[in-house]
């Protein structure tokens, strides 16, 4: 028997894509493709496999992300929130739409784990909030060093208790204070506590309905808690044994005494080894695309289904295209073209004598002849002039580059 949950996807607000400059200048982050499939469709697919139907999924968007709404309107319910809201306040605005316990996803989370396991865990532990956490092991064993889920240098320091509760979380870059300071009562609540630095927060949370009410009450107090992850979550983790906080949560009337005793506030972590990555910065976005190109046993499960749908195009005889390249439908490729380890979207035009390697090219892009493109991301409808060399450049939507240029490490917008 599965308790029906509601899924909420934070589809994009004002700040979405701020670290993905210039890709999101005129384009929604949720629509950025990984292996030619927009990110948000991955979320929807994961939810569908877990049994969520269109009436169970709610996507929160601001008005300027209309394109997302158009794409997904048949698969989920859309709710528009005000322009300047943050993740937490967006939830509050959608309060009436949320009626049950919910699972909160961010539009840029790529999850390989089975959501049903997470939901079962949440139910069996009677947790207030369950977080999906990936455990990684960056210990250099034989061979190549493993690649982290999070290509940012920062990491979280988490105190995990013996019953899998999350006792403390801070970012290693945060608080320049000399000391890591934890409340004593929180540490005493578990028999043994581990200090872990190899855990990655995937930003997928399963919450009880009361959490939303708690959030509402907290935001009414003068605490300036707007952002879900950066402000609300650390706040309640810090005060999880504080009696005043518990009193704020609504009390169930007529609960049996022994049930009421179980109404403790607990934040648990579900630790998985499966694939997880958050695509909120350029490095991680690129890395996800590289990972999606890997076929076979070493490939990521999440991307396998996408690859299977690739249609084989006809290419000229002298085009040298590496096997792990993905090329979208309708793309025309000129003569003597070399493409290595890249993803090319639909309806692109690639001229003659072009060398492309390690790049991500989206839809309707025109690349004129004799170009060399390495480690670049070219957004929709961009254009690159003749004989231009681009190295590690990122182009925004509708951007274009003059011919005969040599550019390294540049961001170009319209």
């Amino acid at each position, binding site marked *: 028997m599965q308790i029906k949950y509601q899924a909420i996807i934070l589809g994009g607000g004002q700040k979405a894509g701020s670290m993905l400059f210039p890709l999101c200048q005129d384009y929604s982050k949720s629509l950025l493709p990984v292996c030619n499939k927009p990110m948000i469709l991955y979320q929807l697919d994961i939810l569908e496999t877990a049994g969520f139907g269109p009436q169970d999924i709610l996507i929160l968007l601001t008005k300027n992300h209309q394109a997302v709404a158009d794409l997904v309107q048949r698969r989920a319910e859309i709710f528009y929130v005000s322009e300047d809201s943050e993740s937490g306040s967006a939830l509050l605005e959608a309060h009436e739409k949320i009626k049950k316990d919910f699972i909160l996803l961010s539009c840029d989370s790529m999850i390989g784990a089975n959501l049903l396991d997470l939901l079962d865990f949440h139910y069996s532990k009677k947790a207030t909030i369950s977080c999906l956490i990936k455990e*990684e*092991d*960056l*210990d250099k064993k034989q061979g190549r060093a493993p690649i*982290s889920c999070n290509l940012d*240098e920062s*990491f979280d*320091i988490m*105190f995990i208790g013996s019953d899998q509760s999350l006792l403390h979380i801070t970012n*290693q870059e945060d608080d320049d204070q*000399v*000391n*890591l*300071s*934890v*409340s*004593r*009562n929180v*540490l*005493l609540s*578990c*028999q*043994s*506590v*581990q*200090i*872990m*630095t*190899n855990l990655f927060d995937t930003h997928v949370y399963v919450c009880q309905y009361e959490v939303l009410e708690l959030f509402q009450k907290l935001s009414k107090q003068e605490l300036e808690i707007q952002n879900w992850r950066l402000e609300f979550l650390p706040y309640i983790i810090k005060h999880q044994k504080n009696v005043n906080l518990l009193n704020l949560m609504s009390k169930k009337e007529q609960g049996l005494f022994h049930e009421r005793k179980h109404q403790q506030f607990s934040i648990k972590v579900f630790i998985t080894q499966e694939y997880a990555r958050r695509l909120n910065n350029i490095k991680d976005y690129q890395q996800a695309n590289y990972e999606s190109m890997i076929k076979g046993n070493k490939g990521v499960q999440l991307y396998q289904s996408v690859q299977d749908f690739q249609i084989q195009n006809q290419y000229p005889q002298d085009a040298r295209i590496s096997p792990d390249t993905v090329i979208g439908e309708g793309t025309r490729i000129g003569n003597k073209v070399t493409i290595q380890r890249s993803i090319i979207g639909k309806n692109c035009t690639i001229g003659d004598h072009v060398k492309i390697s390690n790049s991500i090219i989206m839809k309707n892009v025109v690349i004129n002849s004799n170009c060399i493109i390495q480690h670049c991301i070219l957004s929709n409808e961009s254009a690159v002039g003749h004989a231009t060399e681009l190295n590690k450049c990122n182009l925004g939507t509708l951007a274009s580059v003059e011919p005969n240029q040599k550019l390294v490490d540049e961001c170009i917008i319209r």
Partner: protein
Amino acid sequence: MSEFYAVILADNYDNQFNHLTNTLPKSLFPFVDDLIIEHQINWLSKNEIDQIIILYRNEKIAEYFNNRKRLGRKTQNIQLINILDSKSSGDALRELYSHGIIQQDFLLLFGDVITNISLKDVINKYHDQRKEDKMNILLMVAHQGTQQYEEERFLYVLESDDKLFQLIDLQQKQIKFNKKHITLTKGMPCKYVIRSNLIESGIYICNRDVLKSFQENFMWAEIKEDFIKYMTTTSDIQEEKIHLYIAPKIQVSQRIFHPQSFHNACLKYLSRFFFPYCPQQQYYVDFFKYFAGRVDQKAKISDQCFIGQNTDVKPKVTITKSIIGKNCKLGIGCEIINSILWDNIEIDDNVIIKDCIVASGCKIKNSIQSQIVTMENQKNVKQLSNFQKYDDNTFQSEDSDEESDSHELHQKKPKENDDQGLKEDMIDIVAKCQTVSQVRQAIINVDTIKVNSNIAFENIVIAFMAAFLDTIQPDIDSLKNAYALWEEFIVRFVSETEVLCYIKSIETFCRQNQQYHLNQFLQLSYKHQILSEQVILNYQNQMAAVEDDQFAKEFTQSSQQFKEYLENIIAEQEQQQTQDEQGDGEYEYEYVYE
């Protein structure tokens, strides 16, 4: 194994059992069916440790061992070392070092530990640690359980392989970790574990280097507060490491800190927690009741009780969770609840004894509650004092930043001129000090002298008083200032054994110099908590009884008011304490057997 010594610190340096330990050291307390120290010797011999060194302070232990005849298959080699002059376990260890018996490793055991931990694995782990690194000098043995008492409440921060990183006491509300001392690297598996379900057992396996460290740092008084704290907090300089051995779940221990834990340990022993160390099987009845004496069928005895040999339990007697020793006579209709009765006790009819400890040989005529009853001086005098209600604020953490590494060592005077040299030194020190921090420095200096020249406390007090009294003027303000300044120093060196010579030296001084009033000295001493009410009253009574002494008569007259004041205070205290209802606290046993 033949080289492996066990060192038992057969004394305590706190006054939790103040009343009983005045006459009987804690190691000689009867614990259910035998003395605590016998239990420990039994445990050690079952773990194949036969060389035992006992550090004792009270003569009774020496007497006991001289008259000890135990039938056993193995005879142990027991050496007794006298640590009469020590004020703390640190001093005891320094004394041990000076005897030079210990060459290698030894096991250190506190005198109040009852345990069933098997030492074989412990010693193996210790030897493995030593092979890995010569800097592993101490292995603490801890067992798993819920921390009940204030003395047990610590957070153990462990690194991999059970190395002790930090021992945090739970006084502060926020636990702080200094980021510089912790290594936090991204993506590495977990390095630190914080455990709150460990209890230190009072058993340590140490290397001789531990004794050396105590010798070098002679201000160290306690193992936990000083030694372990030092080793774990100054970890960037220190290379020596302390490891923890965590006993498997069925091996436990219990330390006897205070009356509540004493009772708790007895009940655990009866409940067979310390299997295979249990009361004899032949006495077992059911539900953890052991009857070695005669029990009438009409007596009501609850579970977890022990009735000693030759004790007659008459009908209509109710005994609840209590331990009764040998040769006791219980009158008809008695009720004994949560109490520990030692041997040879007579209890009259219809007496209720609740939450008490009654020492050997007493005769109880009235109902008592929450008291420790002893016999004094072979008379049937009942002296009653009360359990301290367990106070959460009594935990004191050592102030370790007063230790100065650089202190001036006074020149060592040759032994013949010891006394004279000491007096001169004292005069120097007293003359120099003007502020409280200088007084603190002086305390350290005097400690140095004491240890280097091995002087007794009494001599120090006499020399100090001579110098101190020289510096003060007859008016009351100067007296007050002087006492305020030297309060710490006097409190440090004048303890129960020295109060008499302290008062004596003031008395002689006042006799010689008529301008000074003994009464004022006593009042100031009382105010600065150097002397307690009882001591002053005793002295005053003594003086009142002296005949033919003009000085004594004058003193008695002038101190009449003060005497009455003190008597009032004592009466108030007694009244208040009898009004408080004190229980022994709840016993929460973690039943280890699932």
